[in-house]
């Protein structure tokens, strides 16, 4: 029975995909690609887009979905496919307006949006800025602090492992080092946000 399940294309519900995305499950990403990318890619290619542009737009749309899922209590108000399609279309329209070639895309701008995704997109922009802020701070931090902090806070490595990996004489030294790195990151992060 389990073998048959593996062979047959498994029908994954939207909710399962949402759960998978919130955990960063690669199977969910694969499923999203297979189910929704072809139609969105067609829509973009048919409207003066290339395959690569379609890929970029689609990935951004998935990131919008990701932010929506991870930031708030997410509730599916529509089909996942409809949401991704609407977001992709809005994103692509924006990009076309930036390019200044809306005239030739009357066929997608004419129609009313399937979903109101403007709010989602605005929130997404905000979130993205915040994350960019952190990413910039991290990149300015430099090594070995960046790796050390990631190992401790993200990978949840123990202080002993970190001591061994970075060659500190004892865990206390490692702890001190970690604290100093964190303080530096905070300083960069808050200073740059103050500047803004």
């Amino acid at each position: 029975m389990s073998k048959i399940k593996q062979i047959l294309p498994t029908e994954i519900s939207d909710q399962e995909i949402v759960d998978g995305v919130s955990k960063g499950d690669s199977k969910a990403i694969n499923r999203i690609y297979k189910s929704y990318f072809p139609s969105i890619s067609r829509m973009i290619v048919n409207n003066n887009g290339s395959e690569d542009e379609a890929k970029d737009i689609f990935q951004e749309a998935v990131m919008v979905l990701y932010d929506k899922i991870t930031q708030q209590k997410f509730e599916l108000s529509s089909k996942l496919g409809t949401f991704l399609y609407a977001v992709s279309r809005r994103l692509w329209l924006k990009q076309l307006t930036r390019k200044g070639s809306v005239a030739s895309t009357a066929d997608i701008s004419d129609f009313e949006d399937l979903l109101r995704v403007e709010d989602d997109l605005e929130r997404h922009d905000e979130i993205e800025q915040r994350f960019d802020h952190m990413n910039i701070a991290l990149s300015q931090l430099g090594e070995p602090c960046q790796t050390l902090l990631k190992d401790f806070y993200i990978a949840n490595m123990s202080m002993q492992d970190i001591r061994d990996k970075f060659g500190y004489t004892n865990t206390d030294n490692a702890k001190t080092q970690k604290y100093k790195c964190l303080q530096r990151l905070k300083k960069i992060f808050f200073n740059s946000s103050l500047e803004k």
Partner: protein
Amino acid sequence: MSGMQRHDFINWADQYLRGELSTEDAVAFENFCKTEPTYAELFEQHRSFVQNLQKTELRNAFQQSLIAEGNAFQSERKNTATTKVASLWSKLQINAGVAAAVALVSVFSTLWITGYFTNIKKANTDYSALRREMNSVKKNVTEQNKAIQNINNDKNKNNAAIHFGATGFMLTRDGYVVTNYHVINGADSIHLQNVKGQAYRAQIVYTDAQKDIAILHIDDTSFKNLKNIPYTFKKQSSELGEDIFTLGFPRDEAVYGQGYLSSNTGYAGDTIAYQISIPVNPGNSGGPVLDNQGNIIGIISGKQKGIDGAAFAIKTKELVETLNKIPADSLKGNIFLNNKNTLSTLPRTEQIKKLQDYIYIVKVF
């Protein structure tokens, strides 16, 4: 609040956040935060910052795997696109083959049923006939004679044992018979069969390929001399429009044919022959052409393909010339042509009755 204290507190907080503290220590940490509001504030700040960091990294990781998935998907799609076509072909190969076979069979059977191929064949033979005619204009008399359609090859279809069948008629009552050279050309043996069904072996006495004339002699012990020949031979040229008739063997029964003399020359202006307008068929070759008075004026030799009513008969004058050329030692006594006509006053049916005893089927083996 010294730097060391701060440092220790953050470590403590990290341990608390990672759940590394025992329940007692965790309670102690929470209590410490409650009693020390400045530390509580510090803890909140630290916790949200670490969370921010973690979320950023999770998001980065997600984005990375999304991009990786996108690349994998794109290349996979390219592969499946090509394999789809290939697998489609391998699946439908047999179907395509069967379809092609059915198409071929139906095309050719339709062509065959509608007679397309026989039409082609016909067109081709018509074409070759035309070519032959054009070539024959340049050829000499012999070749012209050969170019004239042979009308003697019908019998080989009816009887496989007989190669050719044609007509011949008596020159003298003692067994000299004339027919066409093309009838007996290349013959192994020749048999003459009269209208009663009696057959006699015959030998070739003399042939003239140019005039298409052959003189035979019945060389059979069972043969008895006939009564005097009823017809005479007219050496002078006959007039255009003269009524003429013939008796021949286009089939095993004698067939009467009637018509008129239509031209003083034969095929392609050949002066040794007349053009006559009598329906003739393969097997009529060698038959006599007589006028109303029962004079032999010619010997049927052929007809032109594709032209209605254009048959040819070799003039009697040519026959007489041929007879005169025969060397004396090849003859058993001279050939004296009959000069007493017993047909001239008889009606046509009586003429034929008298005539048919002197006309033979020539069977060439």
